[in-house]
């Protein structure tokens, strides 16, 4: 090896080292540990007695008549379908659609008003999670102290108990209201980066506001929308803090990530089943990888990542 080659290698190591270390320590090692623990009987004593597939037995049971030779047990099936409903609804209604509406409307407003409006939507992000969770608890309080019920009563309607009657709607709303702001920011900056001349040209070509949105703005948002979809669906899949803060370990909102958390780390509610939690997490990692790859293909992200999207004119 020549000295210059050595120097290049050292430079590369210095440059990429911290990032690699970060990835290995916080991503790769935990996954490996999770993989190993999932096949043990580790529980509160944090000791490995034997290597076993028992944990997966708690989630699925063999059934020769089923399509894949096994069927999901009740609680696991519930968690899976709840996760799916929660992720798809939050993503479709808030993180993408509502974020798009926010971005489109606030960029059409005068600058100061649009900025103010966006700042209001960003506020939940600035507040600590616990404060945000507490606010929601106050909003949906089942007594007449709750904000929602005060409004309903003012309109002469009956008070409701969202936590009991519409728990999934509640967690979708709570996560959506905070999640929409990220998409809003990304989409706003994408709309802002469309050259002003394109709008002038479209106006002169005879296009009205709706046509401009459809033919000029939306096509320019294709890549940011793909990015938001992939990124947000993954983060929703593993997020549980607002669900836990608002609903606690309620069965009605026991998504996959909530299940993994309550079985392992949540104090005083049947936690300490580390191997069981690891098995659930392992499945969650698998689902995350598969859905990331699927979305990657579906949205043609490869093109976004390999070719510059900026057109120099």
């Amino acid at each position, binding site marked *: 090896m020549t000295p210059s080659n050595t120097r290049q290698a050292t430079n590369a190591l210095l440059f990429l080292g911290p990032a690699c270390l970060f990835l290995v320590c916080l991503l790769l090692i935990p996954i490996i540990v999770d993989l190993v623990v999932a096949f043990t009987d580790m529980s509160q004593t944090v000791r490995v007695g034997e290597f076993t597939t028992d944990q997966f037995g708690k989630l699925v049971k063999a059934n020769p008549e089923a399509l894949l030779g096994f069927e999901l047990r009740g609680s696991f099936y519930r968690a899976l379908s709840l996760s799916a409903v929660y992720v798809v609804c939050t993503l479709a209604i808030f993180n993408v659609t509502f974020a798009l509406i926010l971005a489109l409307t606030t960029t059409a407003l005068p600058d100061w008003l649009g900025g103010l409006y966006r700042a209001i939507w960003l506020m939940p992000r600035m507040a600590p999670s616990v404060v945000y969770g507490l606010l929601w608890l106050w909003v949906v309080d089942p007594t007449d102290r709750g904000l929602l019920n005060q409004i309903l009563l003012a309109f002469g309607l009956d008070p409701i108990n969202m936590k009991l009657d519409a728990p999934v709607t509640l967690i979708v709303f709570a996560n959506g209201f905070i999640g929409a702001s990220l998409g809003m920011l990304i989409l706003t900056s994408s709309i802002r980066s469309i*050259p002003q*001349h*394109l709008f*002038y*040209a*479209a*106006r*002169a*070509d*005879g*296009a*009205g506001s709706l*046509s401009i949105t459809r*033919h*000029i703005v939306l*096509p*320019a948002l*294709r890549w940011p929308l793909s990015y938001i979809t992939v990124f947000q669906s993954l983060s929703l899949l593993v997020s549980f803090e607002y669900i836990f803060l608002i609903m606690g370990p309620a069965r009605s909102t026991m998504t996959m990530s909530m299940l993994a958390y309550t079985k392992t780390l949540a104090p005083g509610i049947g936690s300490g089943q580390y191997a069981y939690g690891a098995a659930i997490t392992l499945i969650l990692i698998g689902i995350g990888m598969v859905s990331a790859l699927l979305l990657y293909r579906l949205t043609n992200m490869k093109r976004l990542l390999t070719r510059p999207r900026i*057109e120099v*004119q």
Partner: protein
Amino acid sequence: MAEVELRNLRKDWDTATAVDDVSIKIENGEFLAILGPSGCGKSTTLFMLAGVYLPTSGDIMFDGARVNDVEARLRNVGIVFQSYALYPNMSVLQNILFPTRFQKTDDAQARAHEMAELVQITDLLGRRPSELSGGQQQRVALARALIKRPNLLLLDEPLSNLDATLRLSMRAEIRRITRELGVTTILVTHDQLEATTMADRVMCMNKGRIEQVGSAADLYLRPDTLFVAGFIGSPPINLIPPDRDVLSLPDRCHTLGLRPEALRVSEVGMPATVLSVEPMGREAMMTVDTPLGDLRFIEATAQPKYRPRDLLRLTFDNADTILFDAKGQRIPEAHATLKETAYA
């Protein structure tokens, strides 16, 4: 096609006036160039014509009808931008067809192909704008602007992003196309060559006001103001405070204008010392020290005969001198004559 008239047009921004009392009438089918330095209000005028900006006061008339309050999309104006502003997500054909979405047209496809033929891009219709060269994008933008048979075609610095050779051919090309269609055209440019070669009339603007409207020759030979004299012509005109010991001229003359090519070497004339020689290809520009001051002088030769510190004698035709008063207005029919004392 339309006759366009601006009446006392004015545009104020928060801090400045961009266009100040502009009035002009553009005949049906005429090609007008608005020429001026950046910030002179020429683009603002264009955008007011397009309906992108609203005038602060004054009227915009198309064929005698006031269109101030008519939305851009209803004015039937075609516009070509410096950046071409093609829609990046659409093919060339879709770009050209875009305006027909908003107009009742039965033969949109046929017309698009007709336009493509006119601007000679028939073999590019399936491509995306990002796959085209600057000149090709320019042609697409032109076809898109023309497909709806606009009342008025607006060109905003359309050639600035092209290289020199391409600019030359596009200049002729745009001229040919607008003539063929007989469309009223307004070109905004800071390039005097573009304005004078393409337009029937040139409107020269400075600081939001019209300095002069006229043919290329009017602006060059009879500039109304000091600004026009200085802005038109390359290398620029010599503008000198007249020395009355060596020149006889009217009392109110404040500045003497003398084009570099008006000077010529002669047996009898004022003495001049060559300070510098800059070969420019077809000709050479020299700076010479004379009794009138330092002057730019063009020697029409590719092989300069003179070198710095050479001595020669220069003269000019009195008719070639342009005189301006203290306000910078040209004094009509007045010329300067070199006195005998200058020959010493």
